[in-house]
Structure formats: C-alpha cells, structure tokens
C-alpha cells in the first residue's frame, strides 16, 4: 500500500463492548505488502501470530536492502571510492532516521548493534563493568526476557555487585508499591522491559524512572516489544539507555539499536575492540574513536541498517499511533474471545486490560506444544513454551504457555481462525469446548 494515500485521521476505535470492531489499519491491504504471507502454510492461508518472536518484512524493506546490495555496497567509513561513500552515506542516513524515530535529533546517541541482546550486553560490558562493584545493586524484574536478565547475572558475578528484583503481583505485573522496599541508594542501575514480551502489558516507566533517578541510578529500557507497537520517545521517557531489535519491527535480523545519552556514551569505555572503534593504534596501545563509532567495532550490518531505516519509514507511513491502536484492538479482541473459552486462562491481567499486541494463555488439559502443533496444521503460527521468560512462568506457576502476537498485517479474521483452532484442539483431546 502507498502510505501517502492513507487517511491521516484514523477511524475511531470501537469501545471494548461493541460487537462490531473496525480495524484502524486495513489489515488485508497491509498484508499484501508482505510477500511471505501470500504463501500457503500446510495448504492453508498463513495466519502469522508470532511477530513478537520475529515479524515479517514488507516489500519496502526487502527492496531497500536489495537496492543497497545491488547498487551501493562497499565497506563504510573506510574507502575513498564512490561506492564506499555511497554505502557510508546510506548507513549514516539510517542512523539519522532511527534517531528521529526515537524522538531525538542527536544521531551520536544511536549505536547500531546486532540486536537487543547485543545492545544490553554492550551496556553491561562497558558501563556496568566500568561503574559497578561490590556494594552496588542492579535492579531488574522477574518478567524480563532472558536477554535482559542473564547479562546482569553475569555482570553481578564479575563485579561482585548485587542483583535484586522488583517484586511482581500475583498476575505477573510489576508491584509498584513494593518498589521502595528494593530501591535504596545502593541501587546504581535499573533495567526493565518497556512492554512484557509475555504479558503484553506496559510497565510503569515514568514511576520507576523517577524513583531510580532520585537515588542517582541509571535506567535501561528494553524496548524490543514496545518499538514495534507504537511511538517511543526517549526524551519523554527520560531513560538513560534504550535497546531494541530491527527484526521485531518489520525490519531485518542482525540489526538492533542501543540508544544512550550522549554524555554517558562519551564516558563509556569500549566494549569490543577492532577496526572502526579506534582513533590511533600503535603497538604500545590505542586511543578510541568518539561515540557512537567507539561501540561499532568491525564492519557493521550495513544492508540491515538500510533495511531498518526502510522499516521505520514504512511504519511511520502507516502511522505509529494507528499501529498502536490496531495492535491493542487485536490483542484485546483475542484476549476477550479466548478468555471466554472453557479451560482457558490468560496470563497476566484480566481480558479487558490493555495489551500491546501480545496475548499469552494456557488451556487446561492441553499442553502449549500440542496446541501449537495443531494450530500449525491449520496454517496458524503461534509461540509455545516459556518465551524466554522462565522466571515469569515460574512466578505464575506455569511450565509453558501459548502466545499469540500481532503486527500490522494481522486482522480480526486471524483471531477468528485462532479461536476456532483452539476449540478444534480442545475437541481433539476430548476436552469439552
């Protein structure tokens, strides 16, 4: 679809009780932009409900990457020839584009990484290793994706700092009232998911940031699951670090972003050594390049950066607010209709709570892996397991769950298929649906 032809005044969203819902995005039209969705799965129309694991890419992204590879590729920041200049220009334009996407005009604050995981490990390995020691506390939450938990476990072990968790409420959401019990002036660093990849809920960033900054702690926001679902403004959020991946927001794999305040980046030591990140190298030692280049050792994922910028353009063409409304509507509809099935339990808050495009659930008598296999035979792709949040599943007393997650190309018809598929699976296992 051509975003420029879109009506820029999105239709009003139906209230939750309304029997007829109108999708803010025309999912069927958007779907045509994604070539993979035209391919049948097991002879069925592909219903892709695993975008929180990795989303699909529109032609706009695939074309931009192919154009780069076929016309402009060379190494960046190194050559004097025309292609080297062209590649460098495209790569740096992508940085500028991402900065604007995050609500900042300071492109020096955007470090390209291989993904969210690498971005978080960069902060742990550079800022954390440099700043933390015995007596210091790192504050996390038990709902984190393993990629925002394990790096801090490793750092805690390396530096002798203490790892502490903000307690959760029984439904798995953050217990904000308990924050003062764990947030004291020994806390130097707080890291948290913006949106839970399992529950779909948005965490109370403003409250946590205010409390953390009051004791002088820095805050990292794992935005891997929020950037795909709506506008993210680093200045408004007032965080110190923010990480996200390209491949969960309609872009390619192998590219992600660490955004950090410039003064923090400038003071941080290098994480990985290599080309690009140095100013001068002698056999006696080296001096470092400025941020962000200091943190981009080696040849970066150039085509992927170009693809990420194209994904940003595509999403902004659709409208970030409209995407947010679309995902919330689909997740809300799925939560309500699934919740009405016998034996089905939603993970997280009640069905009418706001979910950012993610719904996880269990079905009594039906293991998540069996359900996912049965749905797959009907062309429906969902995630089954612990979704890299084992501590959260332990907290909820659930070994595994099924997750449906939504993107711009999903429609209410997809949810019809999902609900019918779950009923069919229950019938297969002799469960009274």
């Amino acid at each position, binding site marked *: 679809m051509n975003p420029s032809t879109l009506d820029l005044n999105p239709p009003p969203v139906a209230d939750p009780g309304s029997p007829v819902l109108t999708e803010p995005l025309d999912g069927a039209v958007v779907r045509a932009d994604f070539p993979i969705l035209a391919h049948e799965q*097991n*002879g*069925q129309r592909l219903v892709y409900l695993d975008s929180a694991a990795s989303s699909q890419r529109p032609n706009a992204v695939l074309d931009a990457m192919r154009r780069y590879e076929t016309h402009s590729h060379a190494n960046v920041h190194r050559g004097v020839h025309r292609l080297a200049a062209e590649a460098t220009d495209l790569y740096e334009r992508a940085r500028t584009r991402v900065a604007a996407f995050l609500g900042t005009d300071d492109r020096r604050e955007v470090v390209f990484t291989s993904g969210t995981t690498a971005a978080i490990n960069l902060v742990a390995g550079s800022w954390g290793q440099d700043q933390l020691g015995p007596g210091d506390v790192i504050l996390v939450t038990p709902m984190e994706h393993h990629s925002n938990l394990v790096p801090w*476990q*490793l750092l805690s*072990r390396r530096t002798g700092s203490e790892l502490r968790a903000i307690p959760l409420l029984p439904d798995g959401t953050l217990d904000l009232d308990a924050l003062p019990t764990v947030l004291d002036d020994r806390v130097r660093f707080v890291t948290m998911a913006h949106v839970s990849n399992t529950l779909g809920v948005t965490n109370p960033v403003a409250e946590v940031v205010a409390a953390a900054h009051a004791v002088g702690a820095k805050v990292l926001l794992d935005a891997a699951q929020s950037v795909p679902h709506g506008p993210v403004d680093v200045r408004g959020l007032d965080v110190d670090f923010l990480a996200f991946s390209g491949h969960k927001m309609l872009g390619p794999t192998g590219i992600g972003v660490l955004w950090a305040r410039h003064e923090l980046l400038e003071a941080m030591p290098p994480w990985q050594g290599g080309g690009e990140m140095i100013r001068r190298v002698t056999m006696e030692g080296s001096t470092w390049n400025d941020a962000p280049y200091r943190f981009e050792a080696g040849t970066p994922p150039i085509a992927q950066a170009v693809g990420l910028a194209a994904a940003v353009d595509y999403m902004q063409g659709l409208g970030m607010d409209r995407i947010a409304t679309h995902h919330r509507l689909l997740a809300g509809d799925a939560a309500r209709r699934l919740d009405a099935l016998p034996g089905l339990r939603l993970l997280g808050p009640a069905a009418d709570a706001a979910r950012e495009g993610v719904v996880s659930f269990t079905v009594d*008598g039906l*293991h*998540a*892996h*069996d359900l996912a*296999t*049965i749905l797959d*035979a*009907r*062309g429906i792709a969902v995630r*089954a*397991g*612990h979704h890299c949040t*084992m*501590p959260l*599943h332990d907290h909820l007393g659930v*070994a*595994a769950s099924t997750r449906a997650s939504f993107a711009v190309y999903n429609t209410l018809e997809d949810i019809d298929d999902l609900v019918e598929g779950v009923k069919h699976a229950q019938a*297969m*296992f*002799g469960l009274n649906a």
Partner: protein
Amino acid sequence: MSDLSDLYQEVVVEHARSPRNAGVLEGEGVLRADGDNPLCGDRITVMLEIDAEERIREIRFTGDGCAISTASASLMTEAVTGLGVADALALFARFREVMTTDADPGATSADVLNTAARDATVVDGADVGHAGVESADPDSVPPLGMLEALVGVRAYPMRVKCATLAWHTLRAALPDEPAAVAPTTRTVPVSGRAADSVPVVSTE
C-alpha cells in the same frame, strides 16, 4: 490441512491423558534422573529399581510435559519393565534411530521401521559409557511394539525431542556399567536455571 492423526494417534492421546506408571519410587536402591528440555520447559523425573539379574523391576515417572512427551514416557515405562539394562538401552537406540532417521519421500511407517530394525545396533556417538549397547545381540533387540505409535512424530522435527526426553532421562538414570549396579541416587538439578548452566539430558 496436514493430517495430524499420524501424530496424535489414539494410543498417544490415551497414554497422554492416562499415563501408566506415573508416580514416585522411593527408598534405598532407587535410581533416579531428572530431564529437562529447555526449549519448551518440559521436565521429567524417572525413577527405577533394578533387580539382581540387572533387570528393570519397577519404573515410575513424574513430570510436566506435552502429550507426546507424556505418552512417550508412559509407553517407555511399559516397554522397559522387565527388560535387562542392556536390552533397554538397545531398545532406546532403536527407538532413537527410528525417530531421527531421515525418511525417504513417500516412505511408509513400515518402511521406516524395517530400515531402523537393520540399523538398530548402530551405536550413537554420544552413547559413551554404556557398554551394554555394543554387547546387545542384534537378534535379541526387542521389537518396538507399542512404541510404534510414536513414529508419526518423525514428520515433526521440532517435536522429536519431546518423544526422546524420557528415554534420555532413563539412560541417565541407568548405571554406567550394567555389570556393576550399585544403589545410588543421581539427581540432576533442574532448579538452578538462574545459574550459568541449564542441565540438559536431551541432546538430540
């Protein structure tokens, strides 16, 4: 839609809903191992007793898993009760062979079983420390019997681990040297996931 009836055969669904030998064995001489599939969070504990003739006298399991892993554990306990340790390991080798051999396009389940029967004594490279496998007489390899109900899992590569988890855990519980059975309890902790390693029994 692809046909799921080959995967979820009646026998499989029935064993998943009413698993045999589900429960706990306690006491001196009980061998035990925990298995964990970190991919999906499935966990199983296998407990067994071996008699003086090195036969599996009793076996029980507890766990939390999908229909395939639960049915496989249930069918396994029925299949190995009364078997010698070496024969149980040979049966595992055969079962694993059936589950992991690439199928010719168009091969029927019967073809697969026949091929696997010929290869049943092939020893997996990972099977170190189980001298009993090599010594098993090819002619005495027990037939798969009811385990054939699980052959449909082969068409679902992501699920093969579900079917073999119980067997890997059984192997971990068995004594390394069948000739030197000593009453021991070996427990592979599964609770320390926050630490630097996740104990994994399943290796396929």
